[in-house]
């Protein structure tokens, strides 16, 4: 019961935030709408007993990525409501068509009694107090190679972007 109420509230929040991202005239409000969506999804993770994922979602996306978005928006000064010439004239019609198709598809699936993803159930009551351990153990035992390779990949991409962006003028 509680889960259903929280789900409806947060789903409305997530969709509302997504709508603001598209509809807001001011890019700062778009960024805040995206923040609202990310936050609502984080609450949904908590309801699904994935506390660690929720915390990481808030730290990485809401904390770091969106702050950088806002930072860039303010730094390059596009935080004014502007009419910008659209470079893709067919974009709106295509998006509208796809949206209608998606709604029809979802409606058909719902009417035909499609089995959606089942709700999470607590199979092991102890797991709610140990989600960090539950994630960490497979990550650092069975999947340690893949995990470290991903970390190395991220480091390489960060170092590479710095190397590409950083140059010294010869005359400077």
């Amino acid at each position, binding site marked *: 019961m509680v889960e259903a109420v929280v789900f409806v509230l947060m789903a409305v929040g997530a969709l509302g935030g997504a709508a603001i991202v598209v509809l807001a005239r001011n890019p*700062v409000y778009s960024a805040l709408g995206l923040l609202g969506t990310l936050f609502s999804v984080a609450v949904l993770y908590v309801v699904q007993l994935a506390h660690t994922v929720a915390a990481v979602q808030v*730290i990485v996306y*809401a904390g770091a990525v969106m*702050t950088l978005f*806002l*930072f860039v928006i303010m*730094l390059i000064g596009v*935080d004014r409501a502007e009419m910008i010439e659209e470079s893709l004239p067919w974009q709106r019609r295509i998006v509208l068509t796809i949206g209608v198709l998606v709604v029809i598809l979802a409606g058909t699936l719902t009417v035909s009694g499609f089995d959606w993803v089942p709700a999470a159930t607590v199979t092991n009551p102890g797991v709610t107090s140990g989600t960090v*351990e539950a994630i960490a153990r497979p990550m650092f035992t069975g999947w340690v190679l893949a995990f470290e390779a991903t970390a190395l990949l991220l480091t390489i991409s960060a170092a590479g972007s710095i190397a590409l962006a950083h140059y010294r003028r010869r005359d400077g």
Partner: protein
Amino acid sequence: MSWAEIGLVVLRVVLTFGLLLVVTVINVWAERKILADMQNRIGPDRAGPWGILQTVADGLKLFFKESVTPRRVELGMFLLAPFLAVVPAFLIFMMVPWGRPVVIGGNEMPLQGADLNIGLLFILAMSSLAVYAVILAGWSSGSKYPLLGGVRATAQAISYEAAMGLSMVAVVVFTATQGEGGTLSLSEIVTRQSGNWGDISPLFAWVPRWNVFPQIAAFVIFLIAIVAETNRAPFDLVEAEQEIVGFHAEYSGMRFAMFFLAEYVNIFSMSAIAATLFLGGWNGPTFEGVVPGLVSALLPTVWFLAKTYAIVFVFFWVRATLPRLRYDQLMTLGWKRLIPAAVVWLVVSSVVMGWRQFGPPWS
């Protein structure tokens, strides 16, 4: 959950909240008094004994002042920003255990707002959300100085959060070697710091088992980072009321007071986290059986407050001592000194701990 358990949860949250409010009021006064002493002044001495009611008087004054709303603000965000500053500040302290669990009517009550399994991650999440208050306040004011202040603040917060997180990771890795498996729960981190370092060498039997001794570099990095995170001198370019003007230039009355409150709450909760992670939290002699039971139940809270105030005093001391950094110095210190130092320390201390735990790599 029975009604008694629900009552205890409410009680501990209210107690934590109340403690935070009281110490914040005292901290504002203490800072003015200590600064005055260091600068050969008297400081506030009119309201109450030693001027201790000065903060209450100032708070009431701000409460009755007009909250001016400039014409060009983005109203919604302008009104929301002060709340975004206060809420994370209070939520951070909810994670900190400020005393030994007490038993009331057969139910054990931990003296802590909430003991989350992901405690440290929650703290990091909340402190990264606190940035939004500053950036939105600066942007929504519709004026150039606050906007520039907001952008400065964001860059600073992002830079020093990385160093703060990395020094926390070193503590988490170290804590994992001190018991069964790793933990992010602050109450567990405190429990693992009880006792002394007698097992390393009998010479250290009098040294309390605090993380600060094996993790001294992480402690120093953490201290510098939290001073920068809370926008305090010498890293207070975010506000810098004398020259460059900060993000809350357009705020007045109670809305300004909320930013002010959030800053002082943050000072206390960050100091409390430092005391918890490095100085053993509420651990300390309780003289069980020698003194009455109530006293030995309250002594851990006294130790916790003493350790926290030692760090809070460092905040005030640094403010009275050091001049403000220039902006490029701030960025150089954050990115080129603190973050590399934190990474090197994390790797070195992890290697040493792995060696001690599992033996040399060739064995």
